[in-house]
C-alpha cells in the first residue's frame, strides 16, 4: 500500500472510532450481548459444574459468533446512506484501504473486548484456571474468521432493507467451520493439554483463508451495491 492508502485507512479508522465513542455507546452492545448470552446459557444449563464445564467451549464460541454477526451487520450502513461510500468509491483508486479500516475498527471495538471478556465467561463455567488463558487465546486465533465473515456479509447486504437479518442468514454457513474447530480445539486443549493440536491449525487456517477471500469479495460486493 502506498502512503496515501495508509493515510486513508488511518483517517477512516480514526473517524469511525470518534463517531462510535460519541454516539451513545453503540460499541458496547457487542460485548454486552456476548456476556448476556453466555450468562443466560449458563442459567439454562443449570448449576451442575461438570455440565457447565463441558458446555463452556461451545457457549463461548456461539456467544462470540452471534454477538459479532448481530453488531457488525450495519458497519457500512451509515456510509451507504449518506453517500460517503459512493463518493469514496468514485474518488479513490481502490476501496481496499476503506475496507481494511472497517475490519480493524470491528477488530478493535467488537472482537478485542470479547477476547478480553472470555476468561471471565470461562471461569463462570468452571473451566480450571490453568486452561483459561489458553482457551481465550484459541478464541483469539479463530475470531478473525468470524469478524471477516461478518464484515463480508455486511458488505453484501449494504443498502438493503432488513439487510441485517439477511446478513446473519448469509453468514450462517460460513460460521459452521470456525465453530466446529474452535470448540474442538478448546476441548482438545482442556482434555490433553495440547495447544497446537490439528484442530488449532485448522482454526488458524480458517482465519487465514477468510483474510485472503473476504477483502476482494467484499470490495466487489460494495461496488455492486452502489450500482
Amino acid at each position, binding site marked *: 500500500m502506498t502512503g496515501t492508502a495508509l493515510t486513508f485507512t488511518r483517517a477512516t479508522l480514526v473517524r469511525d472510532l470518534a463517531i462510535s465513542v460519541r454516539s451513545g455507546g453503540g460499541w458496547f452492545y457487542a460485548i454486552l450481548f456476548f456476556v448476556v448470552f453466555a450468562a443466560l446459557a449458563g442459567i439454562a444449563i443449570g448449576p451442575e459444574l461438570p455440565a457447565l464445564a463441558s458446555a463452556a467451549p461451545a457457549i463461548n464460541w456461539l456467544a462470540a459468533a452471534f454477538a459479532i454477526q448481530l453488531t457488525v451487520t450495519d458497519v457500512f450502513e451509515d456510509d451507504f446512506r*449518506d453517500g460517503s461510500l459512493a463518493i469514496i468509491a468514485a474518488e479513490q483508486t481502490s476501496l481496499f484501504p476503506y475496507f481494511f479500516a472497517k475490519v480493524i475498527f470491528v477488530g478493535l471495538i467488537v472482537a478485542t473486548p470479547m477476547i478480553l471478556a472470555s476468561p471471565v465467561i470461562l471461569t463462570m463455567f468452571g473451566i480450571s484456571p490453568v486452561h483459561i488463558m489458553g482457551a481465550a487465546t484459541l478464541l483469539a486465533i479463530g475470531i478473525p474468521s468470524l469478524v471477516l465473515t461478518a464484515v463480508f456479509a455486511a458488505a453484501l447486504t449494504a443498502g438493503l432493507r432488513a439487510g441485517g437479518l439477511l446478513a446473519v442468514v448469509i453468514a450462517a454457513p460460513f460460521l459452521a467451520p470456525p465453530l466446529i474447530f474452535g470448540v474442538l480445539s478448546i476441548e482438545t486443549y482442556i482434555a490433553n493439554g495440547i495447544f497446537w493440536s490439528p484442530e488449532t491449525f485448522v482454526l488458524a487456517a480458517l482465519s487465514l483463508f477468510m483474510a485472503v477471500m473476504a477483502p476482494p469479495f467484499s470490495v466487489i460486493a460494495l461496488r455492486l451495491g452502489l450500482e
Partner: protein
Amino acid sequence: MTSYSRQITLQARNLGCDRSGVPIVRGVNIDVAPGEAVQLFGVNGSGKTSLLNLFAGHYRLAEGQIGWRIGDEEWETISPLNSVLYITHTPPMKSALTSLENLRFWTHSYGVPKANFEDTAYGALDRVGMMGHAMTRTGKLSAGQKRRLDIARAIIAGREVWLLDEPSAAIDSEGAEMVAAIISEHLGKGGIAIAATHDTLGVASKKLVIG
C-alpha cells in the same frame, strides 16, 4: 491561480443507462474540454443523477461509450486516477463530528499533506462562509450549511473533474453566487464540471436537456 497540471477532456457518445432493466437514459452525447462546464437539465427522474453515476463509474453503460483524455494522450475508458470529485445529493458529513473533523477525514482521502491541513481547511471554510462553525458538530448545522461544507471539500480536493448533483441545493442566493464563483475558478484552472441542476448554475456552461 495556477492551472491544474493535468488538463482533462471528456467525451461521451450515445450514452445509454438502464435501471433494473428499464431504459432511463438513451442517446446522450457530451463533449467537455478543459475549462468547460455542462449543465444537465431535466424533470425529476429523467436520469441526471444516473448520468453522473455513469461518469463516476458506479453504473454500467447499457450502450455508447465514455472517453477520457489527459492533454493529448490516448483516450481511456475510465477516468484518470484521482481526478474525480463527486458532490452527491446528500452532503457526506457525519453528525457526531465537527466541521473541521469531517473535512480532516476528506482531506486525508485526497492525500493533502498533513502539514498543510490547517491552512487548507481554514482557507476553504473561510471561502464558503463557515469559519464560525469549524468546531460545531455537523449534526447541529442546517442543510445549507452542510452543503457549504461539502463545497469546502471540493475546494480542498484539488481534483480536475467535478461531478455535481444539485451543488446549490438548500443554499441561499448569496451562497449560490459563492458556489458559482468557486466553480468558475475551477474552470479557470482548466478543470471540467458536469452538474445536474434545476436552477441555473451561474457560470457559462453548455446546456443539455435530458429525457
